[in-house]
Structure formats: C-alpha cells, structure tokens
C-alpha cells in the first residue's frame, strides 16, 4: 500500500497541518465571530448593515476551517478525536448550537421584516458569544489536561468546567472581539470605523490583561508547563516569543491611536499567532494533554499518507481561491452590497 512514512515523518506533518488548520480557523472565523460579539453595540442600524455585509461573503468559508479541524483530527488522529469529543461534550454541543443560531442569522436577517430583524440581530450576537465562549472553555480544559482510560475518555461530564476554563472562555471572547474590531477598522469608514477604533482601544486593554493572566496562571497551575518554560536553558531559548508578543501589543496600541487602517488587523493576528505558538509549546507533544502524544494517536501510516498526498495538492488550491474571494470583495464595504 501507498505509504510515505519511510521517507518523511508523516505524523509530525499532520500534527503541524491540523494545528495550522485550527489556527486559520481561529484567525478567520475569529474576526467574524468578533463582529458578532460587537454587533449590538454599534451606533446605528446602518452600521450594523455595513458590519454584516463586510463579513457575509466570507463567514461560510471561514467556518469550513472548523470542519477541517474536526474532520482532519478524525482523519489523521482518530484516537485523539474519539477521546477529546466526549471529554468536551457539553461545550462542543453548546458551541454547535451557537454556531447554528449565528449562521442562519446572516440569511434570515436580510429577509426579515423590521421587527423580526431584531430577533436575528440578537441571535447573531448571542450565538457568536456562546460559540466563542465555548471554544475558549474547550481551549482552557485542553490545557488543563484530559483523563484517559484505555483508548477512550475516562473522566466525568463536567471535567471541562473550572475557574481556568471560565477565564479562557472570557479571554477568547475579548480576543475575537479585538480581531472583529480591527477587521472593521480595515473594512469600514466613517462612524462605523470611528466606533470600531474606540472599541479596539478598550478591547486591547482587556486582551492584554487576560493574556497576562493566562500566562501567569498556566505555569502556576500546571507543573509540566512550569518546567517547560522556566527551566534552563528553555527560559532563554523561549524568551523571544513573549517578547514578540509584547512588541505586537506595542505596535497595535500605536496603530490604533495613529489611525492606520489595515495594520491593526494583522497585528492582532500576530498577537494570536505568538500566543498560539506558546500554547503549542506548552502542550507539545501531547494531543490529549497530558496522556496521549500525537504519535500514539496517529492514524495508520497508509491513511495519513493518502490524506497527505491529497492535501499537498488540494490545500494550495483551497488557499488560492480563498485568497481570490477575499480579493474580489476587497476594499471598504458599503451598506448595501446585499443581494
């Protein structure tokens, strides 16, 4: 059978690919979920129309990365998928329900009459918050570790619930809101943009606070993470990452004040990237922290090899036409580019 594992480390490649897919999901759906989080606070209905039409052509493609994250995990690391999903049963179901509410609001809102439009505005807002908060909780619970017995989940119904996961849930809500606000700075004008700039200012402070908290609490809470980051020589080797994060924060703070349109969005993405890499380092090489490594969870080499051969060919095409779609809808969005 077709098998690439004698030439390259297929399991490692898949670990990186899945991590990348999840990260792209966070970046892309992050900003449109963020727009949903900010939605009811916008100054006027016209602003809301404009916010909506800035993301309407993209949300569906963005959410597809979530399916790739889930489907990819199933395909490449079925054992990890089979352990993590039951472990995070409740937050995942809640996330899915949130995503349903906000997803349909895009279409329904355009079709609704004045009064019922309000319902969908709020469905969009609360759906976005619920989905984001659940994702944040899953993230926190993931970092805290998952109980395993044999090849399946060994913990209880509410293992994911803790002070830490509540905090990461909240942190992600502010994080996505920052992505959303900086996206709006880039894609809108006039009062919507001014308002987004003000939002980005507050959110910046919250995100900085929460990221500080998470960085502080994780090593205190978890021996493995403390060992990893504060033992020699790691403490020196890993130093550039937090430094880079601080630099992005500084540049973002300057750009929000100095009225740059495009850069804040990419700087907030940079902040997410440094944090995400930090998370990857903290949990390396676990795919089910701190029980199952990505190697142990890997699908059969022939399965991973087939998928990899296809992905090497398909992923660049996907990225190319995703880019094309962003290019088609480039520039500032107007109130009325609905259909």
């Amino acid at each position: 059978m077709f098998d690439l594992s004698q030439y390259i480390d297929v399991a490692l490649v898949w670990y990186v690919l899945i991590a990348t897919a999840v990260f792209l999901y966070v970046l892309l759906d992050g900003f449109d979920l963020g727009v949903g989080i900010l939605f009811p606070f916008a100054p006027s209905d016209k602003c809301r129309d404009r916010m909506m039409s800035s993301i309407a052509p993209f949300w569906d493609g963005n959410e597809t990365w979530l399916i790739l994250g889930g489907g990819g995990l199933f395909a490449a690391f079925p054992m990890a998928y089979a352990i993590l999903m039951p472990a995070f049963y409740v937050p995942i179901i809640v996330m899915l329900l949130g995503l349903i509410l906000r997803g349909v609001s895009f279409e329904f809102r355009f079709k609704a009459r004045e009064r019922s439009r309000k319902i969908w505005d709020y469905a969009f807002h609360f759906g976005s918050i619920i989905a984001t908060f659940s994702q944040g909780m899953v993230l926190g619970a993931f970092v805290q570790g998952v109980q395993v017995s044999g090849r399946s989940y060994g913990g209880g119904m509410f293992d994911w619930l803790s002070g830490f996961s509540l905090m990461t849930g909240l942190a992600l809500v502010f994080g996505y809101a920052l992505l959303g606000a900086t996206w709006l700075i880039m894609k809108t004008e006039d009062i919507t943009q001014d308002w987004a700039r003000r939002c980005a200012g507050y959110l910046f402070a919250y995100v900085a606070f929460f990221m500080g908290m998470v960085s502080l609490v994780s090593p205190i809470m978890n021996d493995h993470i403390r060992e990893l980051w504060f033992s020699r020589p790691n403490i020196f080797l890993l130093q550039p990452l937090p430094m880079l994060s601080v630099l992005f924060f500084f540049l973002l703070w300057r750009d929000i004040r100095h009225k740059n349109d495009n850069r804040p969005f990419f700087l907030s993405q940079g902040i997410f990237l440094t944090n995400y890499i930090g998370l990857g380092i903290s949990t390396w090489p676990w795919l089910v922290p701190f029980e199952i490594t990505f190697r142990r969870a890997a699908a059969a080499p022939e399965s991973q090899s087939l998928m990899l051969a296809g992905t090497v060919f398909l992923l660049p095409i996907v990225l190319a036409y995703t880019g094309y779609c962003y290019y088609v809808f480039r520039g500032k969005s107007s109130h009325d580019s609905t259909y």
Partner: protein
Amino acid sequence: MLNSLDPTVLARIQFAFTVSFHILFPAFTIGLASWLVVVEWRWLKTGNRLYYEIYRMWVKIFAVAFGMGVVSGVVLSYQFGTNWSAFSDKVGNVLGPLLGFEVLTAFFLEASFLGIMLFGWNRVSPKMHFASTVIVATGTLISAFWILSANSWMHTPTGFRVGDEGLFYPTSWLEIIFNPSFPYRLAHMTIAAYLTTAFVVGGVGAYYLYHKRHQAHARIMLGMAMIMAVFVAPTQLIVGDLHGLNTLQHQPAKVAAMEGLWETRKGAPLVLFGWPDDDAEKTRFAVEIPKLSSLILTHELDGEVKGLKEWPKEDRPPVGIVFWSFRVMVGIGVLMILTGLAAVYLFFKKQLFTTRWFQLWCMALTPSGFVAVLAGWIVTEVGRQPFIVYNAMYTADAISPVAGVQVGLSLLAFVLVYFAVFGAGAYYIGRLILKGPDESDRDGEDNKAYGSHGVSAPPLVSDLVSETGDEHV
C-alpha cells in the same frame, strides 16, 4: 430517570434527528444548484430577462437552504466524535480520509464561491459569476460523492482488515472508495435530489399559474420541472431497481425486511401491503401477488428469495419501519412517473400550462421529494441494523463512554433549536416563494432601484462588449 436511559438508543435518536433534518437541505440544494446553472446559462445565452429574474428569485432561496445545510452539517462532523467515539476510533483509518477529502475538495469550494454567487454580481464579470455557479454546483456533487462513498462503505465494507484492539486498517483505497453499493447509491441519491428540486420548482410554478401571477416565469419553472419528471423519474425506477438488486446481493436481510418475507422460498410472492409482526415472525393481513417478488429480485418465476428467518433474531433489522418506508418511497416514485406521463399528455393537447387540476396536483406534490428521500434513507439505514458497519461492527459497540443524561439533554436542545431555527428558515423560504420573481426594474435605467436591497443591476449581455474595464474584475 434520565440516567437510566440507554445512551445508545438516545444517540441513535439524536443522530436520526439531526441527519434527517440535514439531508433535507442537501437533497434540495444539490438539485437547485445544478438547475441554477441551467437557468443562468439560458440567461447568458438568450439574454432573456425572465431567466435572470428566475435566477435571482431562486438564488435567495438557495442561500437560505444552503446556510441551513451548512450549520446542520457542521453538527454532524462533530457528532461522530461526541456520540460515536468508539466508532470513530475504530474506523478512523478507513473513513477519515474520505471525510477529509470531502472538506478539502467540496466544502471549501462551495463555501468560497457561494459568496461570489450571492454578492458578486457587480464585482465580477458575468462569465466569472456563471463560473461560480458552476463551481458551487460541482461542489455539491463532489460532496455527495465522498459522503455517499463513506456511507456506502458502512453498508458494503470492502478493502479493509481488522487488526489489534479491533481497529480497522485499509488494504485497498480503490476497494474502499468504490465499494460495491457506492455507484448505485450515488446515482440513486443524486437523481433523488434532482427530482426533489424539480417537484419543488414545478409546484411553485404551478402555484403561480393557478393564481395567474408571474405566468411567464411560471411556465419556465413548470416546463423545466416536467422535463425532469418525464425523463428522470422513470430513470430513477431503473436505478432504484438496480440498487435493490445490489442490496439483495450484499444485504439480503434488508431486502427481506423491505419485502416483508419471513420464510425462504422459491416463487416468493410480492407483499403489496400488510403488517409485519417481529414477535410472531410473520406479516399479518398480507395482500400478495404470487411469485412477483421472485420475478423482480431474481428475474425468474421460481427463483429463491431468502426470508428473515435465515438470520438469528438479534441480527435482524426492525421489519415494520423498513417495510412501510419502502412502500412510501416507491409510492411517491410512481406518483412522480405518473405526473410525467400526464405532463406529456397535456403537452400534446397544448394544455400543460392551463389545466387547473394538474396545477393543483403539482402543488400537492411539492414536498413529495423530501418525503421520498427521508423514507429511502430510513429503509437503507434501519435496514442495515443491528450493524453500524455491516457484518463487521455492531451499532451498540460504537457508542461514546457518555452518560444517557448528556445525550438526552443535548437531543432535547437540538430538537428545540432545530424546530425554531429551521422553522423560521422554512417560513422565510415560503415568503420568498409568495413574493415571486422581481419584475420591477424591467426597463428602468435607475440602477439604484434594482432589486429590494438597492443593488445595482448587473450588465446585460448586450452591453458586455463595451464593458470590460476594472469595474467587473
């Protein structure tokens, strides 16, 4: 209380509920996307505004249905893990790549180009817009290809071996992807999707004709739908028969349940109606046609057909639901074929668009495709029980280590949210249909007034030659 509930039963109910809701949307959008390709092509080719207005009306309906299909589909991709983790763990090596390829080859394609299809009218050239419609339609078909391949493998698993800890390993990808029941299921389902759409479009056309609204548009809708009923509905009969013969070869217990046959015998009768009784092991009040079942299944009057008693009681599917769902599906198929025949007759009498009873008939059949699709899926999925992977893995061994209360409460949440959300979706689709195609800007030059959302009109084909500047790229 809830804790005493069996998680396997609840998980099955939950999956049946979410997947049944989901399949309604693809069954509609697969056909609708392909039909929109035809309509847009007619518009570009003829420059006839009617086609353009029909497209704009139905693309809105498509958007609503597609959006609901996406969000209900995301749920499924996570449910495999939340509720069926033992299944995911064991067959991941085999089915994982198929689902992965579905995301990479289909979902991204559909999701990305749908944006252009809906919002790109004045941002891309008409050719690029048409290309987007074609790409979205192709995406829906590619998606059907992969998911039906995965589903068919669970019915007729080939190309694998079972290794340590009961894990499945692939031995031949070609045998896995093109497993024995896959070609039949793919053809059967794709045609079913096309017929579902045709009868929705035809029913809406008939409704407009009946109420004497949008008559020019309605003739196109009803006419195109009837072309499908005339040519495709009979094709489905043949494909369905072939699919049934394939099932007889690989899953004879399912066919025995469909036929309501308990005893293995030569010259088996066709049971038209009856009441299968699992406990008594016979079909009560059976109305039979002698020897017909043998004739259909073996193409011989005295061919042997296996009865359900060939299998131990615990390996038989529940018979009643399979038996009845099969009759509902076939019955609707027959009604569709009759509709096609009536359409041909009325067409040659030149009364296709004016016959009142036929309009009422088509309106009544508007939801028929959905019912038939659901019934067909019930036949095939319930009919393979008690296995999740036929003859290789029991459904009861596939469940996650979760408590009944979790599955029960999430089922309740899904039921509430689905009925509220998809009920609203159906309402909005209904309103779009009542509103009909927008004829307001036929000859006006004022682009601002175009449509209901102030979108500027796309260029007409006659203007295309001169307009190739930046505006359209």
